[in-house]
């Protein structure tokens, strides 16, 4: 932008009332271009995300059968909240989310702290860390299921040699859940570590230097310097992982031959397999959306700093 244009803009700003600010957003040719450029993305978000959500909320108060649609108030929600399978899905999803996110965060932070030093082969290590991220979740589910398989699986072989388990590893819903958590921890811990490592590397070294001069112990450095300064990266990592785990679908689907219920598999079953109950499944979908919103709100409320500062 030329100096003259900058000066001209400064002048208009001085005189600008609220209205002229609004009109300037659309009369300034560059700003107008910006709005045209973001228009397609906005349209996609509006048509494929915003509108379906509004429509889903509306539909959740209707009974939908192939031929009839009638208003039934909160019937779908009462059917949902009295369904035993829904609570099973809610419980499994909650356990999966809490355990896997805690493990991934603790391990990821540990790895990031260890790797936060210059050493030969750091680049190669980052490349390796990104490998599991590139796997489709269904494929990593299949790979882990093969490793748990009771005749040829390497895990069941080790478990048997060590005398931990005899017989099939993935025999009960509980063990499938543990298996799914391990697989998820394997797939996403390296990514969490990379995110946190990126956060660690923007902390200037002289902050540590100064605190050492003042006699801070390593533990004090960690709790008073590292953690507070890492907060934005921690927020991003936790928010990403928690909401991603909360919508778990593919992993349960593959690991358990569709037996293990999650919130998302519950919705899917009702939408796709028994369309008679589409309305109830849709009510569950609205529940998933609202609970995700609540999780995001809580994280931002309690961990949020000015993370938006780009």
């Amino acid at each position: 932008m030329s100096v003259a244009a900058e000066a001209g803009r400064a002048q208009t700003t001085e005189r600008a009332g609220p209205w002229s600010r609004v009109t300037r957003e659309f009369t300034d040719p560059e700003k107008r271009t910006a709005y045209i450029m973001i228009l397609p993305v906005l349209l996609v978000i509006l048509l494929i995300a915003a509108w379906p959500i509004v429509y889903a909320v509306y539909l959740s108060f209707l009974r939908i059968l192939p031929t009839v649609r009638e208003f039934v108030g909160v019937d779908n929600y009462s059917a949902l909240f009295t369904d035993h399978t829904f609570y099973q899905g809610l419980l499994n999803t909650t356990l999966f989310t809490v355990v896997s996110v805690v493990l991934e965060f603790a391990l990821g932070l540990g790895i990031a702290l260890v790797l936060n030093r210059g050493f030969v082969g750091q680049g190669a290590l980052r490349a390796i860390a990104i490998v599991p991220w590139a796997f489709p979740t269904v494929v990593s589910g299949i790979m882990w299921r093969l490793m748990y398989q009771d005749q040829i699986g390497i895990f069941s072989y080790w478990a048997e040699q060590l005398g931990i388990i005899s017989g099939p590893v993935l025999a009960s819903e509980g063990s499938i859940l543990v298996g799914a958590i391990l697989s998820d921890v394997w797939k996403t811990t390296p990514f969490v570590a990379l995110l946190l490592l990126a956060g660690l590397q923007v902390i200037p070294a002289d902050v540590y230097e100064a605190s050492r001069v003042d006699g801070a112990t390593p533990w004090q450095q960690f709790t008073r310097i590292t953690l507070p300064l890492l907060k934005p990266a921690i927020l991003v990592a936790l928010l990403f992982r928690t909401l991603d785990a909360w919508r778990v679908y593919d992993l349960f689907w593959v690991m358990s031959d569709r037996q293990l219920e999650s919130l998302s598999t519950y919705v899917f079953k009702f939408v796709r397999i028994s369309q008679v109950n589409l309305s109830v499944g849709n009510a569950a979908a609205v529940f998933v959306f609202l609970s995700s919103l609540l999780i995001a709100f809580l994280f931002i409320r309690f961990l949020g700093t000015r993370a938006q500062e780009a």
Partner: protein
Amino acid sequence: MRGKGFKSPLHAVGFYVVVAAFVIITLFPLWWVLRLSVVDAEELAASPGAVGIPEVLFDDPKSKTDNPWLPLSYETIFADPNFKRGLTNSVIIAGFTTLFCLAIGSLAAYALARIEFFARRPVLSLVLAISFFPAVAIIAPLFLQFQGLGIINTYWAVIIPDVLIALPLTVYLLVAYFRELPKDLEEAAKVDGASTWQAFWRITIPLSLPGVVTTGLLTFIFAWNEFLFANTFTLDPTVQPATVLIPQFATIYTTDYGAQAAAAIVLTLPLVILVLLFQKKIVSGLTAGATTG
């Protein structure tokens, strides 16, 4: 905290133990499944706990199957017409998703990276919010609408929602790449009378081409890996991508574990190779996308 030296030899040993454990644990499942896809049934039965290089590789290749260089498991799955069809469908769906995302995402990313306008920050937040969006929340309304439009069980039914969920990745990566470019050239062009559009198309895009290619690659991987929409909106193997077909292999090739392993390898190895080739850009792009959020 950073720096070359270790405080003591013990620290050095501890450090390399952690690094080695990390590398081994991360790569082991890939190695083990690769091994499973290559060994033959006898060797597998004889040594269930083996993790080394399979002995079958040292056998005389001419004593083996019709195609001496291709292990049997790979022959099995490539003889399956549905598997080949699934791979083609995956390429088509992920390819078109990537094209659409790059086309509309690069425009938006340019505006968000370069132009100061009132809606900039709200739009950035909105795009970020989409990456947290639970896809399952919209499958019921989309299913009804796609049914109404008659596009259930077509590529479109998967590409349309895939574009939505891949967009945040595309936009955030491109914003990061566009911001890396110095503004001088664009400004010089504008002084010479170029419009914002010309600056974008003639200068920014050609100069950030490596970034655009990396972004396209990551968007492709993202769409390639998508499962929920594909599993909901496609009904038969003519349009189903490989991610939807492959879980069915567990029931089709019940005891042919090698075939299941080979299918998993075929689906991931190309991605792993791409990721390793572009790792530097990918890591900086992904973490920049997350930390500037």
